[in-house]
C-alpha cells in the first residue's frame, strides 16, 4: 500500500477549534440582524467551514490533483445549474 499522510490528533483538534469558532461567529453575526448582507455573511462562513471540512477532515489536501480538480469541477457544475436556473427567475 502506498504511503499515506497521517494527520495528528492535535491537527484535528485545531481544525475543530476553527470550525467551532466560525460557528460562534456565524451565530453572533446572525443575532446582529444585519439585514440583506446577513444572508451573504452566513453563506460565506458556511462555505469556509465546508471547505475546511473538505480540505482537512476529508483529506483533500493530501489527495492527488485529480481528486481536487474533480471536487472543484463538481461544485462549479452545481454553481452553473443555480446560475442558469436563476436566469429564468431573475428576468421573469
Amino acid at each position, binding site marked *: 500500500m502506498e504511503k499515506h499522510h497521517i494527520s495528528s490528533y492535535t491537527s*484535528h483538534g485545531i481544525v475543530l477549534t476553527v470550525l467551532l469558532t466560525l460557528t460562534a461567529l456565524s451565530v453572533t453575526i446572525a443575532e446582529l440582524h444585519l439585514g440583506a448582507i*446577513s444572508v451573504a455573511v*452566513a453563506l460565506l462562513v458556511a462555505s469556509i467551514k465546508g471547505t475546511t471540512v473538505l480540505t482537512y*477532515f476529508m483529506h483533500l489536501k493530501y489527495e492527488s490533483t485529480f481528486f481536487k480538480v474533480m471536487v472543484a469541477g463538481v461544485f462549479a457544475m452545481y454553481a452553473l445549474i443555480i446560475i442558469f*436556473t436563476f436566469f429564468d427567475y431573475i428576468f421573469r
Partner: protein
Amino acid sequence: MTNPMHDEHHDHLGSKMGMWLFIFTELFLFGGLFLVYAIFRSKYGEDFHHAAEELNVFIGTLNTVVLLISSMTVAMSISAIQKGDSGRAIRLLLLTIVLALVFMVNKYFEWGHKFEFKLYPGSPVLGNLPKGELLFFGLYFMMTGLHALHVVIGCVLLGITIPKIAKKQITSERYTFHENAGLYWHLVDFIWIFLFPMMYLIT
C-alpha cells in the same frame, strides 16, 4: 471464487474514488433541494424570515457543535487506525455514534415541538400561514428529514466498521472501508454546515 484476482488487486485509491463519486451524487441530491430553497427564498424573503424565527437557534447551534465534534472523532479514529491503534479507533467510533444519537435525540425533540404546535406538513395551522412560511416549513421538514436519514445511514456504516476493526479486517495496512465510512460521515456534517444557517440563522 469466481474471481480470485480481486483480493490481490485490492485497489485502495479506486475504492476511495468510488466513494467520492457517490458523495457527489449525494451532494447533487441535496443540491436539488438547495436550489428549490434558493428560488423560494428569493421569492418570499419576508415569509422565510418570519418562519425561520420559529426555529430554536439554540438547538440548531447545539446540533452543529455535536456534528462538528463527531466529524473530528471520525477523522481521529482514522488517524488511530493508520497508526495501528485499533482500540482507540473503536473507542472514537463509538463516541461518534453516541454523538450522532445525541443529534438525533435533539432532532426528535425539535420536531416533536413543531408537531405540538401543529406545524407539520398538511396541518390546518400550517395551511393558514402565509405561503412563504408554508414553503419554509415544507423545506425544513424535507431537508432536515432527508439529512436525518443520512445520519442514520452514516451510523450504520460506522457501526459496520467497528466489528471489522475488532476482527482485524480493518488494519493499519488496509482501512479503505473505514476511510470511506468516515468520508460519508463528513458528508453528513458538510450538508449540515449549509443547512444550519439556511434554516436557523437567516432570519
